[in-house]
């Protein structure tokens, strides 16, 4: 009974983590950017969906769409206002661009977080779920919304796989992650590929954010923990490896659920952090890292 509950709850959480981390790792794989405003973008999506549905009364579907749209815009803003100027800057030495991107996106994330807090307060917000009610699976009362979350996550990840592996644009993205110089030699504009990747990232982060808002609720305080969890999942899986991130998301999701159910919710994040430190010691490149 309890085992099934852990199995089901753990799956929904893990699928959500996986969706959130996939975009993050995709950006790193293609352009070497670690986007520390990730949590802020997710929260912006959730809060926008909440505001559209609860204040403007546009309905849950339109609200969710608006949330994803806001995430897409924020993602483009992150790229064009923060990341691209740093990448193009001549005054920043190449070996230091990484830390500048980290600092820049971190500051940008704080700015987004403060704007959200200013206009929508720090209170936790729960987005109205698209599907309501509960069903009984294997003797466990499960909210339909939780099943919906898991299905959407798996579906979107499958769609992403098709996009990357089966379309021309996707193949260009994949090629750019393998060898950026080779791609430019083939006559493809690298900036265009980056824009595509940031668009994919924005949509993924937006969907993850809106679903998180429906499932657990968000507040502007969730920004830091969300970024940290995406970061640790991605590093655990191996930076830039999408399949590694998926595995890591499920490991972390189940570990957290197990701890919360069997030990205490207060210790929820500790085993995952210990595992992360352990993996860093024995396998610094992560589970499926290339380097």
């Amino acid at each position, binding site marked *: 009974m309890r085992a099934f509950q852990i199995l089901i709850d753990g799956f929904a959480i893990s699928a959500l983590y996986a969706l959130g981390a996939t975009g993050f790792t995709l950006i790193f794989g293609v352009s070497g950017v670690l986007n520390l405003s990730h949590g802020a973008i997710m929260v912006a999506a959730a809060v926008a969906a909440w505001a559209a549905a609860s204040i403007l009364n546009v309905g849950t579907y339109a609200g969710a769409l608006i949330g994803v749209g806001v995430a897409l815009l924020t993602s483009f803003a992150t790229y064009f206002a923060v990341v691209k100027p740093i990448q193009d800057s001549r*005054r920043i030495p190449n070996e230091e661009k990484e830390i500048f991107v*980290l600092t820049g996106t971190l*500051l940008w994330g*704080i700015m987004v977080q403060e704007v959200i807090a*200013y206009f929508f307060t720090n209170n936790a917000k729960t987005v109205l779920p698209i599907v309501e009610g509960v069903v009984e699976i294997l003797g466990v009362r499960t909210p339909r919304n939780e099943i919906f979350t898991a299905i959407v996550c798996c579906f979107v990840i499958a769609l992403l796989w098709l996009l990357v592996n089966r379309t021309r644009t996707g193949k260009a993205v994949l090629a750019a992650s393998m060898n950026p110089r080779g791609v430019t030699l083939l006559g493809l504009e690298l900036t265009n590929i980056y824009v595509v990747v940031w668009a994919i990232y924005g949509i993924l982060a937006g969907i993850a954010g809106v679903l998180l808002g429906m499932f657990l609720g968000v507040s502007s305080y969730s920004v830091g923990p969300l970024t*940290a969890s995406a970061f*640790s999942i991605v590093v655990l899986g191996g930076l830039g490896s999408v399949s590694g991130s998926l595995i890591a998301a499920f490991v972390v999701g189940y570990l957290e659920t197990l701890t919360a159910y069997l030990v205490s919710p207060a210790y929820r994040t*500790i085993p995952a952090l210990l595992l992360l430190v352990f993996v860093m010691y024995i396998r610094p490149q992560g589970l499926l890292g290339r380097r």
Partner: protein
Amino acid sequence: MASFFTTRLFFISLALVVIAATLPLYVSGYVLGLLTVAFYFGVFAMAWDLLFGFAGEVNFGPTFLIGVGAYTAGILNAQFGWSVYACIVLGALASVIAGLVLALPALRVRGPYFGLTTLVAVLMLQNFIVVFADLTGGEIGLTIPDVITINAGANYWIALGFMTISAAILYGLSQSPIGLVLQASGQDPVQAGALGFNIVKHKLAAFIVSAFFSGLSGALLVFYFGTASVGTVVDVAVGVNVIVSAVLGGRRTVLGAALGAIFLIVAGEFLRPTGEFATFIVSAVALLVVLFFPGGFLGAALSREARS
């Protein structure tokens, strides 16, 4: 090294310290209190800059070192009643041990991987403090019974003196051969090792020195505040402020980091009337500096001097 005492930077620094030392004679206790905190923060930022700017280690967890020093000192004083000075010394030593713990992964992993390890260290410390609430005061914080002094002027001078001495030592170290080796090993560890320098030894030394000053400053800050809490010395947001200070002031300058910290704290106070928007404005200014003056305040000033 000797030529430094004739540079313009030295005279400007000296003049600033002398002016700062006379402040308690004519400004209010409120301003002194603000600057006292800013000076301790300056030491945090300088210690961070030694690790990042010179050793090239992206340390996202400066508050791990600060927090260990601060909480060790606080717990020894509040729970065991040890004297203030013993607590401060032991806090700094505990921080050095924490620095060695942090240095272990740094010798194995680099770049973002090391950055994440340090971030995890902070989160673990934070969890530890909350879980062992009986010892640490948990989320509410720890009330410290003793203080160094309650005189605002004296506290200010202690902080100023401490910052000046730390700055002299850290700057001296950064300009010494050790600093050069560190810089080389940060930029290209393989080549630096091939030139015959013991990189491991130098990196460990950098971590120990950085941890010592972070912990000492954290312990002093705890006895100034009279409390130790997650929000003031451990939280990731505090660490972000330390990093932003160092980048704002100019990385790889050590002294710039202190300027950045003082600017950040004083600006935060000036913007208090804008309410919740203060953090936004400070972050926006910091982002603009990062984008348009990547060298920071001191970096921009020094490069102009070098050009003219």
